[in-house]
């Protein structure tokens, strides 16, 4: 580690060194792709979507719905996309890590020194991460769907992508994963600590259903549809279900929840000491 010369090298053109959101997005993309943990988390996401979809399809082929009522309620799209719910945890945790990891390592201070207005860091991360998860998950949900249907076709339980609502369910599942990632990212930015933010993420995803389940059914049926996961997962619902919100209404509600968390995170990020 010898040193060549102490003086600073030739300066770059100075006037152009302004921070912009587009530049921060590029920077965040460099950060995202240069960490091995990102690749591992996304790999777990991909494997979860495909493997659990295949597994569940094989299971349903082994034990197909027996009576007409069960057959009518059978949703081949949902069966092939079972893995999305598990993948949501991996994506959400990765979202948490993207911000909480910077607080844990102290990198956030470097980031805020480079971008002193701070908010572009949050928006840059959100844009980069949402687009990355979408780009990864969209082809994977399609693959999981197609592989799943080819398995289900053995017992003629399959459905075509062109049937009403099916393509929307496949695309919507990828959108849902992106939105869960943003929820995780928002929680990571709001709570800063990895452990707390992961706990909050799992709590938000699974806690409300457990709590609502304790209420009398007249109340719980009314409330259930507005809970984060039932609302968000509605986008992948092909069979009309009166207990659940409409697909885009439900997904919109989930995005609203994620948006509220991100807005709180933004408010706190500007206010608090780094």
């Amino acid at each position, binding site marked *: 580690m010898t040193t060549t010369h102490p*003086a600073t090298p030739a300066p770059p053109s100075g006037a152009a060194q302004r921070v912009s959101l587009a530049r921060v997005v590029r920077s965040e993309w460099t950060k995202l792709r240069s960490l091995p943990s990102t690749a591992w988390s996304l790999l777990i996401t991909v494997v979860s979507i495909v493997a659990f979809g295949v597994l569940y399809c094989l299971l349903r082929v082994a034990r197909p719905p027996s009576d007409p009522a069960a057959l009518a309620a059978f949703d081949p799209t949902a069966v092939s996309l079972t893995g999305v719910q598990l993948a949501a945890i991996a994506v959400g945790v990765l979202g948490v890590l993207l911000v909480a990891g910077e607080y844990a390592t102290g990198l956030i201070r470097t980031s805020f020194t480079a971008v002193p207005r701070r908010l572009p860091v949050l928006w840059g991360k959100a844009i980069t991460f949402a687009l990355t998860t979408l780009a990864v998950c969209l082809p994977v949900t399609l693959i999981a769907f197609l592989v799943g249907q080819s398995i289900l076709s053995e017992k003629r339980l399959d459905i075509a992508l062109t049937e009403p609502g099916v393509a929307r369910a496949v695309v919507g599942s990828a959108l849902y994963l992106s939105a869960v990632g943003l929820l995780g990212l928002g929680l990571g930015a709001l709570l800063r600590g990895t452990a707390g933010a992961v706990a909050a993420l799992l709590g938000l995803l699974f806690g409300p259903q457990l709590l609502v389940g304790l209420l009398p059914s007249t109340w719980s049926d009314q409330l259930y549809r507005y809970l984060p996961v039932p609302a968000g997962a509605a986008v992948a619902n092909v069979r009309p279900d009166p207990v659940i919100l409409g697909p885009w209404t439900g997904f919109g509600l989930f995005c609203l929840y994620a948006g509220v968390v991100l807005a709180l995170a933004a408010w706190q990020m500007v206010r608090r000491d780094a």
Partner: protein
Amino acid sequence: MIEARGLTKRYGDKLAVDDLTFTVRPGVVTGFLGPNGAGKSTTMRMILGLDAPTRGSVTVNGRPYREHAAPLREVGALLDARSVHPGRSARNHLLALAQTSGIPRSRVDEVVEAVGLKGVAGRRAGGFSLGMGQRLGIAAALLGDPRTVILDEPVNGLDTEGIRWIRSLLRGLAAEGRTVFVSSHLMSEMALTAQHLIVIGRGRLIADTGVEEFIARAAPGVVRARSTDPEALAALLRSRDVAVSEDGDGALAVSGVSTDQVGRLAGAAGITLLELTAQQASLEEAFVDMTRDAVEFRAPSTGGGPS
């Protein structure tokens, strides 16, 4: 140029920085000195807009740091050598930082080479030694060719060669007309690097002065006197209200008087002197004296507050 006016930071009921007013001028290396916990890092975080002052204000190159449109062009900072994700390579860390301001990739290679990390830039920063981590932090600070450089304890973890490199780097940056503000708890290091000193203790300004003036003001000379009869000499000096303490080897450390005065007194009393030398007051001693005073001054006034 860094200008702090009445800068104050309170954490709970602990006053970390207490009404600091100072100006760091371009063209010289300004040392920012204080014992650990004196509030140096907190002050630097406030300069960089990372922590909001409880009261007062601080500007860099005429504006609060957060208001600069091209921040890396204004300030390059090394806050904590570990403000890096351990899983990312040094080059990618710098590249991500550079991209926020549209600084080209070629500049990343330049600073990597300038700090001597060329051979290891592709390695994960988590595997770096403390010294390599410091060099990476300094590379990040130089990235935007900043007008003001703020370094928190840059010599920590550096070897002798690295320390000499930092010294000439800082002097070079100042000679180019930049503002250079460097914190340290090591006075001896600052004596060699800085031309101007801002000294704080317990969050308060103790001195804002040139290095030489600081030594002269802070530490009166001490005379080392070894004699055949140290007890008699000590008694003689104490009878003249001169402070005397043991200095080992039967020698005495005599404060506040010159070698001439000690020699004359000893001669008149018939005490044989074996050694009589004026001890050079070091910056380290000056610093310890200064900050001890600050602590003594502060202790009663904090009242019921934390120690």
